[in-house]
Every structure is written in structure tokens, then in C-alpha cells.
């Protein structure tokens, strides 16, 4: 122990000089959760979040997705589930705040409402991405271009109506 003390005299201090010098988090650190521009607003992250820190509020024609940093447990479930890389855990860790109400991250999306009943279908970006995927497979029906502006139950109704009309003897 005496030797230890002697050696310590000539060593550099072990203490980091943190507030005066940056002390960056390593790569892959699970820090402040933020939405990126890639987010399409599908809501998969909100479904898996263990503490339910991501909330979705649909109001008129906009969807607001909000992550509460005070509730988040930084587990990376949302980042793992997101198919669009729309949410990620950054390396920022300095989140201390004096006002609880301002510690959140938010993103807004336009909504598509059903033309039949006015219910929310999904966000515009999400629908565009889905269209792209369907086009790639080649399943898109060129004739019914506006089919996605109806919700599922209205779509069923419409399909049934068309079928009945088509089967009517003229």
C-alpha cells in the first residue's frame, strides 16, 4: 500500500475533467432517443415500448408522435423494431432539465382520412412507402388508383357494391 501511494505521485490523475472537457459516449451508447427524417409515422415503436414512453395523438389531419425522455428507459426496442430507421438512440446523454415539460422529442405527420367514414387510415408518408413496396412487387392495381383513400371496412363495402353492380343483368 505504501508503494502504491508513492507510484501514484507520479501518475497522471485518473479523474476525468468532465464538465470542462467533453467526455463522449462510446459508439453504440444508448442515449437520448430521437426521431429522424426517415420516420413515416407507422407507430411500431409505440407498440413495443415497455414503459409506453412513445405516445401517438391523432388530431384532425395531423399525427403527433412524442417521446418523453423522462419516461424512456433507453432499451433500444424501438430502434430494433423500426423498419424505416426512423428512430434512433443518439450518443447524447446531457439531458438534465429544470423544466419537466420540455424534455421530449416530437415529430408531426400528415394523415390520410377515409373518404367514406372519416376514420384515420395512416400517415401520408407511410402510405407512400407502402405503395413503393407494392409497386416493386408489381401488385398495384392501376385501375383503382384511389383505393387507399378508403379504410378497410369502407373498402369492403365498395368492393361488394362494385361486385353487385357488375353482376346486375342489364
Amino acid at each position, binding site marked *: 500500500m505504501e508503494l502504491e501511494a508513492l507510484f501514484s505521485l507520479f501518475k497522471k490523475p485518473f*479523474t476525468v475533467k468532465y*464538465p470542462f472537457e467533453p467526455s463522449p459516449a462510446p459508439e453504440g451508447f444508448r442515449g437520448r432517443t430521437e426521431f429522424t427524417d426517415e420516420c413515416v409515422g407507422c407507430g411500431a415503436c409505440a407498440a413495443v415500448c415497455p414503459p409506453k414512453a412513445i405516445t401517438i395523438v391523432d388530431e384532425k389531419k395531423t399525427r403527433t408522435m412524442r417521446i418523453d425522455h*423522462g*419516461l424512456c428507459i433507453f*432499451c433500444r426496442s424501438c430502434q430494433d423494431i423500426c423498419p424505416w430507421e426512423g428512430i434512433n438512440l443518439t450518443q447524447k446523454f446531457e439531458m438534465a432539465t*429544470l423544466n419537466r415539460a420540455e424534455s421530449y422529442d416530437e415529430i408531426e405527420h400528415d394523415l390520410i382520412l377515409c373518404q367514406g367514414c372519416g376514420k384515420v387510415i395512416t400517415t401520408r408518408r407511410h402510405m407512400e412507402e407502402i405503395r413503393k413496396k407494392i409497386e416493386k412487387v408489381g401488385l398495384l392495381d392501376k385501375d383503382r388508383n384511389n383505393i387507399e383513400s378508403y379504410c378497410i371496412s369502407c373498402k369492403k363495402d365498395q368492393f361488394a357494391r362494385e361486385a353487385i353492380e357488375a353482376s346486375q343483368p342489364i
Partner: protein
Amino acid sequence: MLDKMVNYCRKKSPWLLHVSCGSCNNCDIEVLAALAPRFDVERFGGVLKPNPRHADIIVVTGIITLKTRDVLKRLYEQTMDPKAAVAIGSCAITKGIFNETYASYGPADKVIPVAAYIPGCPPRPQAILHGVVTALNALWGE
């Protein structure tokens, strides 16, 4: 003038009272780690004091469980003015992952007034240092 001086002195020696109110132990350990050689809160004059009569800043961790609410309240009352409470970790701020539990009264600011919040599960010791410095600056001037 005198006020300024007193505040300056207070800011240079914030004594911390650490109250664990049903946390997963992790924030407690990170608070202790902030006192250990790597991060060393004593650079800013911070000392961990188990006695509420000596403390300036109360560091609260954990959801406030059924049994610890009265303890926290009493400790806050016993602390001398001026005092401030800092909530560390998701549990103390909003109950975090335990937010649906039957065994809690609510987050720390439901029981005592909280001056600063440090999110994280657990926050890095650097984040705790940053939070304590933020709280000090806000309370007793830059």
C-alpha cells in the same frame, strides 16, 4: 452583496443527501460512482452526507413506494433551507418502466418539490455531474 457572497459559498460546497426510495439500486450506484475517483464530485465541493441536517441538495432515486413516501417527506422537512431536490433516473421522474404498478404513490415531484430532473436509466455519472451543475447554476446563480 452579502447574498451574492453567501450564494457563491453555497454553490462551492453543495452537500448531497442521497435518498433511495425504491429504485433498482442502479442510480444509487451511479451516484456513488460519481463520488469515486473517476468522476469525483468533490472537485465541486460535493460531499455525500447521510444526515439531512447537513445537506443542501437531496438526490432522489427510485419510484416512491408505499413505504418510503413518509420517509422521503420527513427527510425533506428535516433538511435545512435553502434546499433543493434533484430527481435522478426515469423512475424518480415518471416511474419509468414501473409506471403501472400498484406499489407506488407516484413520481418524486408528487411528494416533494423537485428542482431538476436528470433522465436516464441509469444516467451516466457524467450526466449526473451535468445535472447537479445545472441545478446549482439555476439555484444560486452562474
